């Protein structure tokens, strides 16, 4: 093989050539393989235009939300809803408005089975209208049951017209305001991220569409160009066939 592909040293080559002069079998084999190599040169790949380019810079920095860019929009929405729901469930947020006024509860103030009797029909009615609500409520109750054992002392914040202690009500107001502020900030952040993702998605689709259109246009141009070439080739082939047939006659 080294001799066939001329990779050996000059000394090796000379030695092998000396052997070939004395050995007809090896000489015939070498000549035969050389002829195969000549034949193989005829095998060429079809002509093609490649012109590949890297057309987009790599992402310079990975943002905190970078992993979300690989998710479709609907999945991002679902994930955001799930996070908000789970956060509300874990915090034990319970908002009620009744004869006692507006009551906001946080923490695990009541065991799962200690709900007022009136809650069950209301939950059942809500569950009938929206099955996911019943499931979320069941999930929350389950989490409450599990976490309640290890929870700290219950916190009940009552915001009502009949609040007895003015100082306590003031602390409650501050806490409520803080919770609202956190929720609003979270919502605003989520909306900003969603808007950003949607904008990027629309931009990507537009870029891809333009590239596809240009490729289609290029392809049509090539086809148009080839039509003339094919005609010329066919004419040449016909001439060739004519020459061959005349020669045979």
């Amino acid at each position, binding site marked *: 093989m080294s001799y066939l592909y001329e990779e050996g040293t000059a000394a090796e080559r000379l030695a092998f050539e000396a052997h070939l002069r004395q050995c007809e079998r090896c000489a015939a084999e070498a000549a035969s393989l050389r*002829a*195969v190599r000549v034949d*193989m040169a005829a095998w060429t*790949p079809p002509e*093609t235009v490649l012109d590949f380019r*890297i057309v987009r810079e790599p992402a310079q920095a990975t943002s905190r939300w970078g992993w979300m860019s690989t998710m479709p929009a609907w999945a991002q929405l679902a994930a955001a809803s799930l996070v908000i729901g789970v956060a509300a469930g874990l915090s034990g947020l319970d908002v009620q408005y009744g004869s006692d006024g507006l009551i906001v509860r946080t923490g695990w103030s009541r065991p799962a089975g200690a709900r007022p009797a009136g809650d069950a029909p209301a939950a059942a009615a809500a569950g009938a209208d929206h099955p996911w609500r019943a499931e979320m409520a069941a999930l929350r109750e389950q989490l409450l049951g599990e976490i309640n054992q290890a929870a700290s002392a219950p916190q009940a914040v009552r915001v009502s017209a009949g609040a007895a202690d003015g100082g306590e009500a003031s602390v409650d107001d501050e806490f409520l305001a803080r919770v609202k502020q956190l929720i609003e900030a979270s919502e605003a952040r989520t909306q900003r991220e969603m808007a950003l993702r949607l904008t990027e998605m629309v931009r990507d689709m537009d870029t891809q569409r333009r590239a596809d259109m240009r490729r289609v246009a290029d392809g049509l141009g090539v086809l148009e160009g080839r039509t003339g070439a094919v005609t010329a080739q066919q004419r040449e082939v016909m001439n060739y066939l004519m020459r061959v047939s005349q020669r045979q006659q």
Partner: protein
Amino acid sequence: MRGGHAGPLVRQETHGDRVDMTVTDEELVARSIAGDTDSFNQLILRWEGPMYALAYRQLGREDDARDVVQDAFLRAFRALPGFKGEAKFSSWLYRITLNLCRDVMRRAKRAPFVQTPEGVDIADLVPSDAPAAESMEDVVARKDLSRHVARAMSLLPEEQRSAIILKEYHGLTFQEIAELQGCPLSTVKTRLYQGLTVVRRELDRQGRGPAGAESRTP
């Protein structure tokens, strides 16, 4: 390969660029690692032809070969920071391309498909850029031989076929092929010899060929 990439995208575009051979591969690689995308595009210009030829001869299909080349450049671009220069850049590209070809063949679970196997339209045998000195008879004979060689090569095991392709059409040394294939140098020579022997037998069986007919043993 298209559309949803958050990172770089390899796309086919028609440019008037020409290959600038005044800069070495190593220099272009260094610039690319530093963030110069144009330098990497210069490397693509240099190597897309050989890589396409390698992928086409391995797979036997234009579309598959084109996809493999595109994917190979994309992978190379992403992996460039990890390229230490221990091997030649071209060898690294060849390795990526061969691995991708292997993946394609494994997925398809098929032998390479040889185009235009039967009933070839004679008009298709004449390339638009055929040399003016080449007569119609020569063109037909050459294309016919090319088809026979392709068919014979498609019969070889993948290791023998890639060894022959890398040696015959890309001029790699035995040592470079051994490194690419992860085998001893002697194994490369054995693969070459066995592969050439099969090709010779198939060409003889098909009654081909102008070049070696007279010099080949019966």
